[in-house]
């Protein structure tokens, strides 16, 4: 694999500007409170807040080549992140509380998760991709998805040391499969990079972050939020189960859409693999990961369901934003004018 370089993105507002400056130069603790004052009450769909959060989380993944790695644990940056997270989590909880209340009346947690997914009324972007999307829209969709898919499964790996026994073993079975069962060429992140390359897109890690609106970044940030806090491990497990339980059929639709548009097996393999893999993973995640976790720790029952509902909420906001943009004949990407085929932006990633 060629060496990838990830550089800080261009700021898109006061919060991401503060983060770029604080990550580049030593953060100024005296300036923290005025930066915190800039954080809006609602951050879930906020382009600037989500980019700021994405940068702060990225310090815990591969990091940026133009940032001192020691900043990962800088207390000023962590304090700022905490302010963004507080609002993010509050919003996720408020907007899912009634569906979580309903789901709690189903005693079997796995069944409750499957029901939540089946009852979700959000628009489905994969159904559109299968039947209607044109080439530009399909490429945009892959660019959006690349933000998370190129680190697929990594946020859930943080759960491993926070679980015991059966739940830990169940998670590891999913993760082993996600990471290619010991075969580097089968790592799901790599399969997605192959899909990007087969479609003529940049397979580089983080390549399309600057094209991603807040609702796209929120899909990556929500799972980082849940993965990075031990307190939220129940929600992280539930989130994972909902991701897996809503993946098989949409993956098939994505594959059919790509085939309809003339893309070959190199492009569809990632999705074909997920039809089968996620039919296994959804059972393991809902029954063995979440089921065992709630059996061992009944106090986490609500949080498991909260995590599942949070995923459906954030994915629904993403799908709505993308489909609304296309409906209006506009790009769904953050920058206007990008057409998906020649969209290099200043300061973004190069492979």
């Amino acid at each position, binding site marked *: 694999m060629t060496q990838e370089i990830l550089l800080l993105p261009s700021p898109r507002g006061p919060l991401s500007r503060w983060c770029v400056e604080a990550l580049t130069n030593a953060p100024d603790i005296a300036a923290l409170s005025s930066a915190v004052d800039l954080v809006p009450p609602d951050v879930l769909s906020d382009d600037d807040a989500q980019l700021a959060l994405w940068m702060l989380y990225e310090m815990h993944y591969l990091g940026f080549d133009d940032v001192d790695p020691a900043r990962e644990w800088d207390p000023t940056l962590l304090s700022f992140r905490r302010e963004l997270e507080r609002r993010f989590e509050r919003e996720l909880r408020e907007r899912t509380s009634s569906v979580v209340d309903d789901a709690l009346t189903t005693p079997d947690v796995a069944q409750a998760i499957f029901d939540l997914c089946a009852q979700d009324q959000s628009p489905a972007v994969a159904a559109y991709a299968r039947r209607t999307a044109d080439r530009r829209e399909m490429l945009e969709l892959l660019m959006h998805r690349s933000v998370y898919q190129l680190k697929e499964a990594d946020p859930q790996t943080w759960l491993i040391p926070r679980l015991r026994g059966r739940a830990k073993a169940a998670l590891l079975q999913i993760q082993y499969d996600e990471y290619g069962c010991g075969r580097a060429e089968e790592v799901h992140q790599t399969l997605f990079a192959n899909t990007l390359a087969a479609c003529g897109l940049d397979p580089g890690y983080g390549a399309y972050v600057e094209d991603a609106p807040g609702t796209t970044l929120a899909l990556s940030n929500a799972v980082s939020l849940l993965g990075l806090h031990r307190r939220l491990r129940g929600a992280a497990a539930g989130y994972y189960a909902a991701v897996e339980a809503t993946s098989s*059929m949409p993956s098939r639709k994505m594959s059919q859409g790509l085939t309809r548009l003339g893309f070959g097996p190199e492009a569809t393999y990632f999705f074909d693999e997920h039809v089968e893999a996620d039919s*296994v993973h959804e059972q393991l995640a809902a029954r063995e990961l979440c089921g065992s976790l709630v059996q061992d720790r009944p106090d986490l029952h609500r949080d498991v369901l909260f995590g599942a509902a949070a995923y459906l909420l954030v994915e629904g906001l993403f799908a709505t934003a993308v489909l609304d943009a296309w409906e209006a004949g506009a790009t769904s990407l953050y920058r206007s004018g990008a057409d998906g085929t020649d969209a290099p932006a200043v300061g973004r990633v190069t492979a």
Partner: protein
Amino acid sequence: MTAGDDDIRPELRVCPDGPMLVRGAGTVTTDDGVEHRVGRPVIALCRCGLSTRAPYCDGTHKAQRNR
């Protein structure tokens, strides 16, 4: 349909309204005599007969149930 190698004993789990999970299978042989090599630690075998990726589950049972 049979699953497994001679030297290992696969572990089975039937999922309500869902597939059968098989842990530790080396191969799956379908009715037509075709032997499918298993590439993952756990597989989900279709029980509803509607999968487009038989013998493996592809999640189609959910569409059927919601109908």
